[in-house]
């Protein structure tokens, strides 16, 4: 019992950090929406510093895998290279803040980068990889990096509303918010 604090201690963001960085992620999402882009905000935070952020780049790259999270992970790599730090060591202490649940592909990518914690807003019923369609975050996949913890539901309704607003402009590459039934 007494050792629990020592062994069980996990790297985890506190309430204020979640609040602060999710506010930033939502600002990004709003900004994207105002510019006619997929309203998903996504930040990678290490040591109280944003070391990667991304927005969906599927259309300009013609590469359907360029989701915001994938772009942010590339920024993280560049940042590590610039600072001369090992990607794996940095990732072990990095949190992803994102307004929408990462898709199955991005969830696998986050595992492969060994990210320990993902904080997200609304569910992604169409592609979600943290429980909505499949739970990749906690699946037994020994060859696919490490499992990660999820903190879900932060300002979820707002995130859904932004996506719904965006769908009215019809973009086939966007994720589906919870309230949209097929």
């Amino acid at each position: 019992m007494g050792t629990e604090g020592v062994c069980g201690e996990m790297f985890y963001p506190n309430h204020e950090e979640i609040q602060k960085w999710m506010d930033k992620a939502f600002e990004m999402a709003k900004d994207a929406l105002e510019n006619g882009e997929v309203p998903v905000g996504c930040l990678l935070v290490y040591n109280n510093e944003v070391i990667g952020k991304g927005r969906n780049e599927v259309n300009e790259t013609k590469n359907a895998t360029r989701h915001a999270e994938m772009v942010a992970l590339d920024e993280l790599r560049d940042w590590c290279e610039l600072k001369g730090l090992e990607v794996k060591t940095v990732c072990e202490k990095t949190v992803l803040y994102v307004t929408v649940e990462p898709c199955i592909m991005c969830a696998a990518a986050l595992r492969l980068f060994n990210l320990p914690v993902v904080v997200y807003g609304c569910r992604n019923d169409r592609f979600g990889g943290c429980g909505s369609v499949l739970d990749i975050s906690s699946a037994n996949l020994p060859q696919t990096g490490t499992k990660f913890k999820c903190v879900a539901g932060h300002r979820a309704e707002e995130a859904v509303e932004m996506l719904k607003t965006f769908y009215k402009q019809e973009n086939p590459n966007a994720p589906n918010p919870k309230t949209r039934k097929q």
Partner: protein
Amino acid sequence: MEPERKRHRTRRRLRRSDPGQKTDFKLVLELNAMHPFTNLTHLKRVRACRSKDSPHALEILICLVKDATSPLNNDFSNAALGEPFVVKIPSRPPLTRPQFELASKHWPTSFHEDKLVSTALRGELFNAKQKAKMQEYMMLAVDAAKEGKKLGLKAIGAVIVDPNSDKIIAKSHDCSQNHPLQHAVMVCIDLVAQSQGGGCYSYEKYTSCQFNFVDLNNGASQPYICTGYDLYVTKEPCVLCAMALVHSRIGRVFYGTDSEDGAMGTKFKIHAQKDLNHRFEVFKGVLVGLCKELDKEE
């Protein structure tokens, strides 16, 4: 293609009915009204009693064991019915004749043969010419894997082709030593994007990762870059790659060997996941021997 062979059997409560009181047809109609059987339309509701010693002529399915209330609802209390009992039934419709025969041993089942699955199981889905093409493309993927291996990389190779024009669009090997997400399939998808004037990485130092430019008719990019294309990959794609292929709307996937965390049969079947917006056919075992050999240390 891997058909579902396993029949999960669900137990169901059943009662014997007294002969001659109602016709089968009327009985079935009334049963369906009282206890609708959704999702189980492949099952016959009534069968002739198998035991000669039984005082009853027919046996009927009432409901799933999990749906049965205890004590049983009043509508079962017809004195003509015997004691309810539990029987195993096939939970899903049989796709092939052997499955049908197995299913029928448990309970009368209707059967609409899935011609594609039956043909595939007989090994007749592709003709000799098609098989030769498949092997030719897989051979290119094997060669790419070997090139990667020479550079000290994981020996996994991939090729994306347009089966209509027989044109090779992109060819790649695993580059994940350089970038944790640059699996052979991910590289191949990015090279397809480059063939259409997009893409986001440079693979200059990997001369075996190549693409051929494609003419897009009206110059407009297609929204889903791999529509109509086939992927050949030496190893079963992982979750990352499998979902990337869904997003890219790949046409078909052919792979050589299974992988431990594979997402097209081993751990998941992402290509057939019911909630996703794109599904495709997957075939494994192309040049399986050569693909297996890639894993051997030299």
